[in-house]
């Protein structure tokens, strides 16, 4: 049984312009001891999904359906103390931009100790001892416990935040854009620390990011999210080597590589759809060079494609052929403009 199973989860935001479906029926599981990378563009619902897992959504958002099972227990049915037990003690969270939320007037060590005392009920002595061990674990000298946030570099602060998430020995850590604000060199070092931690503590990790190369660096599995849906999942190696969804195929040629010299990049024309009025068919159809009649009216579901992989595309069976055509096909769309000029109203992200 996987550690975390998400089944058909739906989350809605209530905005001035009506209900916006940020997460539209996501089914996903995280195996024990594995790292899953959830990638997608801003507004695709990845952060909302993560927050829904531990029920820390903003006030105007609501889970409207589905289940989230952790070790077989549906977290969405829990509340109060029982939920908190899972929220902090079994699932650790590294929120987005967490390193900027360290309180500037307290020593980082004291903030870590405070977290453990409040959420874990540790005695001050226990907490202090564990804080020192946690610091060593995330690669910080325990002497730095006495420093204030401004005395630490961005990478060090991110390590402190990771230590906080690990404080109560969770089995699963959810990290939302943990290295986005960091410079490349430090980013690489923090990622390596996370990888080591994940292996030595046999943690499960859910890493949320917009940066595919971070997933390639750190994760075992990947789930690609688009317009509130998972469009493709599988092992990182397989998905990146042979993507089966046109969106993933498009992303592969959409940003420059450091190592290879410069073949012309191929953008994915158009914009993600406005989730206040999601399209009837496949959400990617307006930007997809391979869309056929069926794609416009019939929304594909996530189906097994063999080898433990899943893809939500009517033409997933032809993926091997489409993949070869993809660069030219997307390039043709760049030249002619996307299929739906005004179809995808911009600014459809979640406010």
């Amino acid at each position, binding site marked *: 049984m996987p550690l975390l199973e998400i089944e058909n989860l739906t989350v809605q935001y209530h905005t001035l312009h009506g209900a916006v479906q940020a997460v539209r029926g996501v089914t996903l599981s995280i195996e024990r001891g594995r790292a899953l990378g959830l990638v997608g563009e801003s507004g695709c619902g990845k952060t909302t999904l993560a927050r829904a897992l531990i029920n820390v959504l903003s006030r105007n958002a609501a889970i409207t359906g589905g289940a989230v099972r952790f070790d077989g227990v549906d977290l969405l049915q829990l509340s109060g103390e029982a939920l908190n037990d899972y929220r902090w003690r079994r699932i650790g969270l590294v929120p987005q931009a967490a390193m900027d939320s360290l309180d500037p007037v307290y020593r980082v060590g004291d903030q870590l100790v405070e977290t453990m005392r409040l959420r874990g009920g540790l005695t001050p002595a226990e907490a202090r001892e564990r804080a020192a061990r946690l610091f060593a674990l995330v690669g910080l000298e325990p002497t730095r416990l006495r420093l204030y946030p401004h005395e630490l570099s961005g990478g060090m602060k991110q390590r402190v935040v990771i230590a906080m998430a690990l404080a109560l020995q969770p089995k699963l850590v959810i990290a939302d854009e943990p290295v986005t604000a960091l410079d*490349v060199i430090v980013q690489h070092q923090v990622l390596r620390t996370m990888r080591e931690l994940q292996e030595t503590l046999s943690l499960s990790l859910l890493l949320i990011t917009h940066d*595919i190369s971070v997933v390639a660096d750190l994760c075992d599995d990947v789930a690609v999210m688009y317009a509130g849906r998972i469009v493709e999942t599988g092992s990182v190696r397989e998905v990146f080597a042979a993507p089966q969804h046109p969106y993933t195929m498009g992303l592969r040629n959409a940003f*420059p*590589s450091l190592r290879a010299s410069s073949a*012309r*990049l191929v*953008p994915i024309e158009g*914009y993600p759809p406005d989730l206040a009025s999601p399209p009837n068919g496949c959400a990617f159809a307006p930007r997809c060079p391979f869309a056929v009649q069926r794609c416009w009216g019939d929304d594909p579901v996530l189906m097994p494609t063999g080898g433990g992989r899943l893809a939500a595309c009517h033409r997933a069976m032809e993926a091997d052929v489409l993949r070869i055509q993809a660069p030219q096909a997307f390039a043709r769309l760049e030249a002619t403009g996307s299929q739906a000029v005004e179809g995808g109203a911009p600014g459809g992200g979640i406010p």
Partner: protein
Amino acid sequence: MSQLLEVTDLRKEYPLQSGMLSAVMGARRVVHAVNGVSFALEEGGSLGLAGESGCGKTTTAKLILRLLRPSGGSIRFAGRDVAGLEGLDLLAYRRQVQFVFQNPYEALNPRFTILRSLLEPLIIHDIGRSLTERVERVAMALDRVHLTPVETFFPKYPHQLSGGQLQRVVIARALLVDPLLLVADEPVSMLDVSIRAGVLNLMRDLSRERKLTTIYISHDLALIRYMCSVAAVMYLGTICEIGPTAEVIEHPRHPYTQALVSAVPDPDPAQPRRPVEIADTVPTPFQLPVGCPFADRCPQVMEVCRRVRPALLPEAAGVHVACHLYPAGTREAH
């Protein structure tokens, strides 16, 4: 070969906003944001300024754009010193040098429609004889950045457009005055991955068809490789290595460049990596060390590095490097 832009020993210092304590102690500290940057850029060339945040690359751009005045050194554009320009000369310079901002969501006046924003440069520089002609120019510019049909964009306000569309408007605005030099500061870092390629391709095509000279500022070496023929790597306000982009990235010489290149994650998980380790310290641009600014983090630091600041000297294959590992004797004679 004529040099359009020559930057020589450029410096920018800021007095540090001192806290209460240092004010009492009478200590006056200075931040060296840019500390002796020199490079030349020929007409039609493209230079990438790479480096981590706080290395002075954005300050360098603002100095070139005359948004800031240098504390020392010189910037010569088409043979004229930029720092001394005033009045009509400055206005003429502004017409020749344009900027693409990092944050497209903030780069347009929120109370102006797209049309109004794009008319602004034409009004300021008195381009076009009538309103009709100006609107026609705006329409052509929008068309060129693929925002069509242009009429639907005229009455829109910035908050009604997506980041990618806004960045295209910003590019159109920069091109309306027919500049010679275009400076872009992290032009796609705020945009979504699937949108980035379109904006990069657009800028690449435009600079080729108009023979624009370009400077790209980015922390992303892959972007610089895609966009630029020359790459300069900056560290704490100085250039530590500059040369043909492919050479700098494939055969990095300076230990910092080596660390930077090796740390860039590759989207292909099959790609093996041999990262160069350097220390994660807090680099502070005040109280710079006497010697090499990178000495504290350098894995190959030598005794001389802490005493003598290395000069940016030619090495091989057109690359200049500021590092004592490459002593002048072993270098190519120039």
